[in-house]
C-alpha cells in the first residue's frame, strides 16, 4: 500500500517538472497553431479582414493557381540554389577547419559562428552594403572592367545573401563529419597511386556524404522558410512563400488564405525535417557500406549489374589510357602538370580566403559604415564621425525599443532558464511513457518556420486582444527561448555520470540538496551558455516579432527592419553595430565557458 503511494508520487515528479514549460508552450504555441489550422478552412475576403466561417478547401485548392504555384516554385529554386552555393563555398572551409591545428581551428570556428549569433537584420544590412550597386563587389568587378552586377533587389541578391547567412550551418555539418574521417585513408589512396585530387574525390568526398546531405537539407529548409533576408534583399518585389504569407496576413488581411499558405509551408518543411533527421541518424553508419550481400538480389541480377559496371569502367579506363599515352608524347606534359598543380593550389588557397572574407566581411562593413560622415551609405565610407551614434540618443524611438528588447531578453532568460532546466531534468532523469514525444514537443518551436509561429501567435493574440502588448511579446519570446534552454541543458546532461548523484544520496544528502550542491554546479557551463543563448535569441528575435509588434511596443530588431524596408539609413548602421558587438561578446563568453568545438548547430 505504502509502496504504491510512493510509486505514484514518483510518477508525478516528471509531470510536475514539465508542467511550467507545457503551460508556456500551450498558450504560446499549440493553441495558436490549432486556431490557425481551423482558420485555414474558413473563407476570407481579401482586403477586408472578414472571415466567413464556413468550412472549405478553397484556400488550399487556390495553390493550384499558376500564380501561387509559381511562388512555390520560385521559393524552391532560391532554396535549392542557396544549398548548392553553400555547398560549393562551404566545403573548402569545412575541410580547412577539420585539417587545421587546434589554434587555427578555434579561430576559424569563431569566424564561422559569429555571423550565426548576429542579428539577422544587422547581417542583412551588411549584405545590402556589400551587394549594393556601388558596393565593394561591384567596385572590385569594375577594376577588371566588368559591368556591375545587379544583385539587389532581386533573386540573385537573395541567393547570395541567404548563402552568406546559412553557409555556417553547412560548414559545421560537413566539418563535423570530416572530423571523424581517418585521414590516413587519404594517404592510403595516394600510396595506391592517386593524386591529391584523386584521393579526395575517390575517398574523402564519398565518406563526407552524410555531412553534405544533412547540411544541404538544413540550408534548404532554412532558406525555404526564411523571411527577413528575402524581404530586404528582394526589395519587397521578389515573391516567396513567406512573403506571400506576410502580405496576405498583414496587408490584405486575408486570414484564411495566409493560414493555408502557412500550412503549405509547414508541409514542405516537415518533409525536409524528416529527411534531415533521417540523414543525421545515418551519420553513425559512415563506414558501413550498403549491405552488398543482401539476400534479395539474385545472383543473375548481380551478374548483369557487374557486367554493366565493368563495361563502363573499361570504356572510361581505355579512354584515360589513350589520353595519358598521348600526353606522355608531348614533352611539356609533365611540366605542364606541375604547373597546373601549383596554380590549382594557389587558386584553392585564395578561394578559401575569399570565402572566409565573404562570411565575415558584412559585419565589419556595417561597423565601418556607422562611422561615416556622409548621410548616404557609400563604400568606402567617407570621413569619420560619431554623428550617427550621437544621433541615436535623440531618436527616442530607438532608445525606447532598446529598453523594450532588453527588458524582454532579461525576463526571458530568468523564466526560460528555470522552466527549461526543470523540463530538461525531467527528460534526462525520469523514465515515463511518451518521453521522446515530450522532448520533440519541447523542441518543436525550433524546427517550425518562424513565419508560421508569428502568424499563429498574431491570430491568437488578436483573439486575446494582446496584439502589440508586452505580455504578447513575452509569450512569443518565451516559447522560443525555452526550447533553446531545453536543447542546451539537455545536451549538458547527456554525459552526466549518475553515480555521482547516487554517491551524494548515499552520503545522506536529500534530493533537493543533491540538486543544489551536485547537479546544478556540474551542469553550470551548460546553464551559462543556455542563459547567454536565450538572451541573444530573445534580443535578436525578428521574424516572429514582426507579426506581433506595433505602435509603442516595437522591439529593436523590428525597428531596424522596418527602417530598412524603406532604404538604408546611417542611424541603422550605428544600432546594428551595437548589436554585432553584443553577439561577438556573447560568442567570446560561450567560447570561454564551453569551448567552441562543442557548439552544436541548430
Amino acid at each position, binding site marked *: 500500500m505504502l509502496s504504491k503511494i510512493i510509486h505514484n508520487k514518483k510518477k508525478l515528479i516528471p509531470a510536475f517538472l514539465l508542467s511550467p514549460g507545457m503551460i508556456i508552450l500551450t498558450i504560446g504555441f499549440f493553441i495558436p497553431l490549432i486556431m490557425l489550422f481551423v482558420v485555414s478552412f474558413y473563407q476570407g475576403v481579401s482586403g477586408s479582414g472578414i472571415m466567413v466561417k464556413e468550412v472549405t478547401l478553397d484556400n488550399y485548392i487556390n495553390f493550384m493557381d499558376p500564380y501561387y504555384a509559381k511562388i512555390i516554385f520560385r521559393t524552391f529554386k532560391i532554396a535549392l540554389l542557396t544549398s548548392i552555393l553553400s555547398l560549393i563555398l562551404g566545403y573548402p572551409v569545412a575541410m580547412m577547419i577539420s585539417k587545421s591545428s587546434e589554434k587555427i581551428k578555434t579561430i576559424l570556428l569563431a569566424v564561422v559562428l559569429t555571423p550565426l549569433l548576429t542579428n539577422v537584420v544587422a547581417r542583412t544590412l551588411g549584405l545590402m552594403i556589400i551587394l549594393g550597386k556601388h558596393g565593394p563587389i561591384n567596385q572590385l568587378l569594375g577594376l577588371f572592367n566588368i559591368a556591375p552586377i545587379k544583385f539587389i533587389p532581386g533573386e540573385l541578391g537573395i541567393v547570395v545573401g541567404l548563402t552568406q547567412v546559412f553557409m555556417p550551418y553547412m560548414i559545421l555539418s560537413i566539418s563535423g563529419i570530416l572530423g571523424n574521417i*581517418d585521414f*590516413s*585513408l587519404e*594517404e*592510403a*589512396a*595516394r*600510396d*595506391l*597511386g*592517386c*593524386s591529391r585530387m*584523386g584521393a579526395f574525390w*575517390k*575517398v574523402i568526398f*564519398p*565518406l563526407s556524404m552524410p555531412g553534405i546531405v544533412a547540411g544541404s537539407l538544413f540550408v534548404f529548409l532554412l532558406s525555404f522558410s526564411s523571411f527577413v533576408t528575402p524581404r530586404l534583399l528582394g526589395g519587397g518585389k521578389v515573391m516567396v512563400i513567406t512573403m506571400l504569407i506576410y502580405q496576405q496576413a498583414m496587408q490584405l488581411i486575408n486570414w484564411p488564405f495566409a493560414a493555408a499558405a502557412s500550412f503549405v509551408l509547414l508541409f514542405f518543411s516537415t518533409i525536409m525535417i524528416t529527411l534531415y533527421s533521417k540523414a543525421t541518424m545515418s551519420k553513425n553508419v*559512415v*563506414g*558501413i*557500406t550498403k*549491405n*552488398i*550481400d543482401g539476400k534479395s538480389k539474385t545472383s543473375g541480377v548481380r551478374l548483369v549489374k557487374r557486367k554493366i559496371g*565493368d*563495361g563502363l*569502367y*573499361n570504356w572510361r*579506363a*581505355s579512354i*584515360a*589510357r589513350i589520353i*595519358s599515352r598521348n600526353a606522355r608524347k608531348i614533352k611539356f606534359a609533365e611540366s605542364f602538370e606541375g604547373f597546373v598543380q601549383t596554380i590549382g593550389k594557389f587558386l584553392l588557397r585564395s578561394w578559401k580566403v575569399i570565402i572566409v572574407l565573404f562570411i565575415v566581411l558584412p559585419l565589419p562593413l556595417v561597423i565601418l559604415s556607422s562611422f561615416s560622415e556622409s548621410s548616404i551609405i557609400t563604400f568606402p565610407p567617407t570621413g569619420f564621425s560619431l554623428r550617427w551614434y550621437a544621433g541615436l540618443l535623440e531618436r527616442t524611438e530607438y532608445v525606447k525599443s532598446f529598453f523594450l528588447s532588453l527588458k524582454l531578453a532579461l525576463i526571458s532568460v530568468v523564466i526560460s532558464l528555470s522552466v527549461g532546466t526543470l523540463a530538461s531534468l525531467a527528460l534526462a532523469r525520469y523514465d515515463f511513457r511518451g518521453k521522446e514525444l515530450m522532448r520533440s514537443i519541447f523542441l518543436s518551436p525550433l524546427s517550425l518556420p518562424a513565419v508560421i509561429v508569428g502568424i499563429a501567435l498574431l491570430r491568437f493574440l488578436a483573439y486575446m486582444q494582446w496584439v502589440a502588448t508586452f505580455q504578447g511579446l513575452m509569450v512569443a519570446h518565451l516559447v522560443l527561448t525555452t526550447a533553446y534552454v531545453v536543447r542546451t541543458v539537455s545536451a549538458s546532461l547527456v554525459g552526466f555520470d549518475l553515480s555521482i548523484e547516487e554517491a551524494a544520496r548515499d552520503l545522506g544528502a536529500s534530493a533537493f540538496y543533491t540538486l543544489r550542491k551536485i547537479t546544478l554546479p556540474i551542469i553550470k557551463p551548460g546553464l551559462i551558455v543556455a542563459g547567454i543563448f536565450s538572451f541573444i535569441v530573445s534580443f535578436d528575435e525578428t521574424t516572429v516579432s514582426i507579426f506581433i509588434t506595433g505602435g509603442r511596443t516595437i522591439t529593436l530588431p523590428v525597428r531596424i527592419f522596418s527602417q530598412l524596408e524603406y532604404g538604408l539609413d546611417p542611424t541603422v548602421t550605428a544600432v546594428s553595430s551595437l548589436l554585432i558587438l553584443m553577439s561577438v561578446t556573447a560568442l567570446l563568453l560561450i567560447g570561454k565557458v564551453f569551448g567552441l568545438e562543442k557548439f552544436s548547430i541548430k
Partner: protein
Amino acid sequence: MSKVDIKNITKYYGDVLAVDDVSIEIEKGELIGLLGPSGCGKTTLLRVMSGFLEPNQGSIYMGGKDVTLMPPEKRPTSLVFQNYALFPHLSVFENIAFGLKVKKLPMEQIRKDVKEILEVIDLQGIEERSVSQLSGGQQQRIALARGLVMKPEVLLLDEPLCNLDAKLRVETRDHIKRIQKSLGITSVFVTHDQEEALSICDRIVIMKDGKVLQIGTPEEIYGQPTSKFAADFIGKSNLLNGRIEKDEKDPNVFILESGQKVKIENEDQYFGNANVLIRPENIVIADEPEKCSEVNCIEGEIDYITYLGEVTYYRVAISKNEQILTSVYGKSDKIWEIGGKVFLSWKSTDALLIKE
C-alpha cells in the same frame, strides 16, 4: 624487388630532430625491421620512404633511382598502415582493386589480379563483403593484399600487427614472412616489439632518438649488442656495472661494483668503466659451489621468483645493489624458494663486454 639505399636521411619536425643522419642499405628481397621505442624516428623514416614526408637532408634510392622528391603516388612502394586504412565505403574487392583502377588496367585483368592475391593471403570468396564486416585479422590481410596487388618493388609495413591480439599476432607475422619470402619482395617492417622483429626479420635496425644504433641479423642483435640500449631493449638481460683495471694483470677480469671479480673475454684489452651483459638463459643456478659448472661462481640469495609455466625466472641478489636474473626451463629437479642461498655460474664467453 629492388635494392633500397637510404643515404644520410635527416628529418626535422620544426625544431625537433626526428631522424638524424640515417643510412641503411637494404638488399633485394630482404625483410628488414626498424625496431625501437616510440618516438625513435622509425615511423618517420618509413614515411620518408613512402613519400609522405620530405627529408631535410639525404636521399633515397630504389633500384638505383633517386626517389627522394617523388610524390607517394609515383613511388614503387606500397604501405600497409598501422590502422589498415581500409576504405570503409568500399567492399573488399573495391578496396583491393582501388590502386589497379587508378592505374586504369582493364577490368578482366583487375579481377584476375584480385583473385590471385586473395589466394596468396588465403582469403577467398569474401570479395563482395563490406570491410567493416571483417575481423581484425582479416582486415589486416586485406590491407596487405591491397598493397601487394600493386606489385610494388618495396613493401612498407607500419606496425602491421599492433592492433591484433597476441595469438593472432604470431600467426599473422608468420604469414607475412611466408608471403614476403615467396614473392621475394624487398620489405621494411616497423615495430616496437622485439620478439616480432627477431622472429621474422632478416636484419634488424635498432633505432633510438632518431639515430641508428646497430644493424645486424637477429642473432647478432641478440648475441652481440654493441650498446647498453640494444642489450637492454632486446630480450631479458643482466647488465652489470663495473670496470677493468690496468694494474690487474689479467685484462679478462671484470670488477663488479660490489668488488667481486668475474671472468670475461676482453680481446682488445679495453680498460676503464664498462658494462657486462649476461643473458639469463646462459646462467646456471646451483645450490652448492661445487656444482658450479663454469668458471664464474658467485654466491647470492634469491629475492624474487616469476613462474611462467615453461620457464621460471629467479632474481638473485649478489650484493646489496646488484641482482642477476636467471632462467630455468621446464621442470627443474630442485625447487628454490625466496631467501634460498644459491650459486650462479656462466662461461666467460657468455659475458659480453659493452664499452660505453
